């Protein structure tokens, strides 16, 4: 299977995307910013369409759109986070623009729009060229490293922003930076699993990790590990079963992990006697 170029590219890009999503995702879930991540992924989709319309390289359109919106969302909130309703409204509007762009695209390149839109929505990991793969690897790798390096102040700022401020942590700056990093991950992952399914890679492995343990470093490793595991297994499964799209396989496995983790937690509580 690995003799093929496209398979190697898929695994390479996919591993790094999963690493970035798993790592950042643990913090995203902790900060309850999953909705913001969802919004960003949809924005990425709109950016891709806009890029196709203007004729600019797709990755660039994605990146610009997500960074702009991420900065906007960060600006709307206190610790660099926006609230449920404002995210919802911005989201709805961005999608409205998406509708417009799709219509325009459909008129300018009759027939091509459907595929472009589908790809941006659901991903096309088995059709990555060498350039796209390198871009994904580098971008996601850099972001993952950045997140790891700033993990401790980020953790403190997320758990207890008041105390973090008192200790001199630039909470707001970190919040903005985090959302921007999320924007980059979103832009790159859209190529792999598509805008709409990026959400699953951010939420499910991290969700599972949070169910299983409260310890930060263990949770982080678990989240990244589960994400990468789901990616590898999903890719392999999809390769063996051609009618199963890779993105569906990957998300399905990640979600199954979350479901199992939630069940395990409930049973652990029932098994052990309540103390105190």
């Amino acid at each position, binding site marked *: 299977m690995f003799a093929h170029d496209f398979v190697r590219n898929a695994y390479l890009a996919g591993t790094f995307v999963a690493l970035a999503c798993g790592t950042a995702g643990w913090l995203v*879930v*902790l900060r*309850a*910013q*999953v*909705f913001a*991540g*969802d919004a960003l992924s949809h924005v990425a989709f709109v950016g891709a369409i806009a890029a196709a319309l203007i004729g600019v390289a797709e990755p660039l359109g994605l990146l610009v759109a997500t960074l702009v919106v991420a900065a906007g969302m960060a600006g709307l909130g206190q610790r660099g986070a926006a*609230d*449920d*309703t404002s*995210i*919802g*409204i*911005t*989201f*709805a*509007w961005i*999608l*409205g*623009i*998406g*509708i*417009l762009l*799709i*219509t325009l695209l459909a008129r300018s390149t009759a027939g091509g729009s*459907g595929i472009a*839109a*589908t790809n941006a*929505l*659901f991903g096309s990991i088995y059709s990555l060229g060498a350039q796209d793969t390198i871009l994904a690897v580098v971008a996601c790798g850099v972001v993952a490293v950045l997140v790891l390096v700033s993990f401790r102040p980020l953790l403190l700022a997320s758990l207890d922003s008041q105390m973090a401020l008192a200790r001199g942590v630039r909470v707001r700056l970190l919040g903005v930076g985090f959302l921007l990093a999320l924007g980059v991950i979103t832009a790159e992952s859209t190529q792999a699993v598509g805008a*709409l*399914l990026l*959400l*699953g*890679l*951010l*939420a*499910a492995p*991290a*969700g599972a990790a*949070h*169910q299983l343990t409260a310890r930060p470093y263990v949770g982080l490793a678990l989240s990244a590990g589960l994400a990468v595991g789901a990616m590898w297994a999903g890719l392999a499964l999809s390769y063996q079963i051609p*009618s*199963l*799209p890779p*993105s*569906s396989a990957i*998300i*399905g496995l*990640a*979600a199954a992990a*979350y479901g199992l983790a*939630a069940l395990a937690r409930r049973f652990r509580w029932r098994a052990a006697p309540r103390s105190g």
Partner: protein
Amino acid sequence: MINPSFSPDLLYDLRQLFSFPFMVNALEAGTIVAVLAAVVGWYMVLRRQAFAGHTLAVMSFPGATGAALAGLPGVLGYYLACVGAALAMRGSRRGTGSRVTETATIGTVQAVGLAAGFLFLSLNQNVLGGPETLLFGTFLGVTQGQVLSLLGVALAAVIGLAVASRPLLLASVDPELAEARGVAVSWLDLGFLLLLGLAVAATSQITGALLVFALLVAPPATAQLITLRPWLGMALSVVFGLVIVWLGLAAAYFSPYPVGFFITTFAFALYVLVAVWRWVRS
């Protein structure tokens, strides 16, 4: 398709608008949807469940594609998917570390729904309109039958909400007191989520998944910027929803651009206008 043009004579334009049955149906459906979304959405925004609302709206995608695959009527697929998702999300609302678990679960449910929908789509390309129409919808081609069934669901939902209005309000803003007073808070939570799912399933057949969400969020959020009073806020929310939908439909009729774009843009513009006006006044 006739290319109508906007003339300076508003009365003539209105008559043009009403001259086609499909347009009348679209307006009727739009009115019902606006009212339903405004009322349900008001509670949704108060309870800060916009993420759950969006996820439920998105469930129409796997619902439609799954039904097509299984040979079931599309309507059934919509309802099953939305109700199923509501139940799956309910599992985490009042749990331990609630907000963290809640958002992770909602995100996972949404991703799974979309993944499943995509799978169904690739297995069976036989879905009306393709993914874009499912997500963004179209108001054209609404039948009288659809309008009537929509009216039925809307009436049931609004009446249900009216009857439960005060206990739901209490459970939404002060759950601890509600529990102490014997209000079944967790049942109300589940009930509301199911209601949201049903309302979304009913409306997204016509408006498309993403449009429903815009109407669920924007008018109530705008109303809540203006007033904190519950009943006044709900009424304002309905007014805003109606204005947005009517203007959006009219604009889409007279121009070559899709309805969804106009409705979402007007909704967003209204919110921004009111937000700016408040900021300027303070």
